[in-house]
């Protein structure tokens, strides 16, 4: 198949080296032109993200494509030979296919199962298509990779469990409220993490945001940012009656929401469910509030623990993803095999036709002595013998294709009949 994949990722290369190589993180840079210029390279894909650089090419048999690609990386990254050897991985054919599938499905990512990488692979493919760097094989391979990624995401839980604190909060909110469409959020205090959580909640449908802060100006400023409503700090108890999700992250030394406050608010809100996320350290909310019926109180440690446990779940799910990828790799190779069989049969037949034509031409002299009908008979006889001779090997080859083991037969046939002249090459391309 002559697929060759060279690359480095966050596991194999330290960030300084990746930085040097992937200017693409900051600039629009794509060396596809240079890669295609390497003799023997017929199709190419260049993928570069902040965590990885991958070059996938399909080259003609023989030729030093790998060396030239190494040189290219060497030059671009300004790397020493030792660094390059340490960081670079090289995959061929089957392993290259598997690696591409794993990357697209997010199984090779720093955060297991993260979805962005699929978009990045799609971008890389789009660029390859635009520059006409993708042909039959890469087209098929990449589309297959997209399908595999989708399967892994939907059939396993590898992307399902929130692995960041703020997403864990969103997931919990959904388990409590179903949809967040009509939910009011109260943000108490400022902080990167709490604002991120609020942003996620709003993005997932949160209806309205209240912002409370000890400093009124700060509250007003943040409310403007989020298009929410600023609330004076002493009115916290009142807003607690309205809000469904409360995020606290003040620097206060004591509890700003006591058990009594929450209990009183709960009564006035007719026991509607209340989800309190306490991101502050030291804590802002009296833990006794969490013992109240219909109140769900999570602090920073709870959320972090959930995110960690979810990561462990994702890793378990990844094992199922690997099974899907193994099966899909197998299937892709089988498809590739059928691709090789048809041209082989064609070139075999072409060779036979050429031999018949040649022999008939050489026999021209004595054939001329025959009657025209006999001359035709002789030509048909030659044709029949050749057809009979080729019939069995060709049928066997087709059968083997169905059983997925044709590669060895194709290779043997090509060697035995010396098909890999100009004709064979043409057939495969």
């Amino acid at each position, binding site marked *: 198949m002559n697929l060759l994949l060279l690359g480095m990722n966050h596991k194999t290369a330290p960030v300084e080296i990746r930085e040097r190589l992937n200017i693409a993180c900051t600039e629009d840079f794509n060396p596809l032109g240079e890669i295609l210029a390497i003799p023997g390279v017929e199709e190419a894909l260049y993928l570069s993200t902040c965590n990885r650089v991958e070059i996938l090419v399909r080259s003609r048999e023989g030729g030093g494509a790998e060396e030239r690609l190494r040189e290219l990386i060497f030059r671009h990254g300004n790397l020493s030979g030792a660094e390059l050897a340490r960081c670079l991985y090289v995959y061929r054919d089957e392993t290259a296919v598997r690696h591409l599938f794993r990357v697209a499905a997010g199984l090779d990512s720093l955060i297991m199962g993260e979805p962005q990488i699929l978009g990045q692979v799609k971008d890389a493919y789009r660029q390859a298509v635009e520059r006409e760097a993708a042909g039959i094989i890469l087209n098929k391979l990449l589309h297959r990779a997209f399908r595999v990624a989708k399967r892994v995401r939907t*059939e396993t*839980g590898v992307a*399902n*469990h929130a692995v960041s604190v703020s997403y*864990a909060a969103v997931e*919990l909110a*959904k*388990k*409590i*409220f*179903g949809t967040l469409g009509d939910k009011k959020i109260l943000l108490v205090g400022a902080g990167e993490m709490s604002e991120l959580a609020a942003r996620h909640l709003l993005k997932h449908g949160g209806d309205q945001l209240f912002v409370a802060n000890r400093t009124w100006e700060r509250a007003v400023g943040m409310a403007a940012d989020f298009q929410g409503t600023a609330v004076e700090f002493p009115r916290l108890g009142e807003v607690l009656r309205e809000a469904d999700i409360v995020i606290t992250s003040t620097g206060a030394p004591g509890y700003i929401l006591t058990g009594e406050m929450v209990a009183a608010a709960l009564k006035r809100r*007719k*026991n*509607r*469910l209340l989800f309190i996320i306490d991101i502050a350290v030291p804590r802002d909310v009296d833990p006794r509030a*969490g013992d109240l*019926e*219909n109140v*769900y109180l*999570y602090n920073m440690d*709870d959320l972090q*623990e*959930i*995110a960690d*446990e*979810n990561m462990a*779940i994702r890793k378990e799910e990844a094992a199922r993803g690997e099974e899907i990828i193994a099966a899909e790799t197998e299937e892709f190779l089988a498809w590739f095999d059928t691709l090789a069989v048809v041209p082989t049969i064609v070139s075999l037949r072409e060779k036979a036709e050429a031999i018949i034509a040649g022999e008939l031409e050489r026999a021209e002299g004595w054939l001329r002595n025959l009657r025209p009908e006999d001359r035709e008979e002789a030509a048909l006889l030659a044709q029949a013998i050749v057809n009979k001779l080729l019939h069995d090997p060709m049928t066997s080859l087709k059968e083997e294709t169905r059983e997925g083991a044709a590669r060895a037969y194709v290779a043997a046939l090509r060697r035995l009949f010396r098909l890999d002249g100009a004709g064979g090459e043409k057939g495969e391309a």
Partner: protein
Amino acid sequence: MDFYLLLYRLVLVAYLISTLAYMFSLLSRRVTPAKAATWIMAGACGLHALFFLGQWATRGYNPFLRLNDSLSFFALVMAGVYLAFQFRTKTRVLGVFVSPAVFLLMIVSSVGIGGPLTAPETLQGGLVSLHAMLSVIGEALFALASAAGLAYLIQDGLLKRRKASRLMKLFPPLRDLDRINHICLLWGFPLLTLGMVAGSIWARTVWGSHWQWDPKQIWTLAAWLIYAILLHQRLAIGWKGHKSALLSVVAFVVLLAAFLVEKYFFTTIHQFY
């Protein structure tokens, strides 16, 4: 073989498969088997309706006067209403409580299938049918309310534990369960009430009095009172969530006890039921 018997067996097998698929979903902590289970259950429910209505129409007798047919109707209402909820909110795993109940009801109801009418001739009439039908629908809705309540209690416990779990992921959101609980109570209560009123009017025409101190009447009234309190607290005081879920499970246990206790320990004018 009799067409209806064949249909009945088909329904039974389909409910069984759907039950097993739901169980598998719960054990493997995956939602895919539950999705399949839902569709199988929908198919079973459709055939079940065909079976029930077909028998009613072709055999020309009143299905609400026989215990086994009433149980089958109970199962049909439960399955149908559950599926209606399921297609509106994605509460798939709730089926893990509903489908076994439906299956068991169908097994029990199969005992007397095709047998003679169990109710004496004197008790036949439109009002008795209405009494039986409304009561069965009301009780089936209460059964669903308690299933949703049970699922609520489990999910509530998981959320209070503050740990990541696949089970939490699998179980429906609290609010959806609470809404199912709410709607089932809201519809079940008036239907059961009407059913009881119809029964009592009929009782007066037969026995001369609305109330016979029959054990079934007493138990049912007790359960009815619990539901009345529950609904009142819910609507007026705002007993949402945990309390309402817990009480609807308790109330249903009482209702179930009413059925079993009077069946095995008392003689009752409801003995054919």
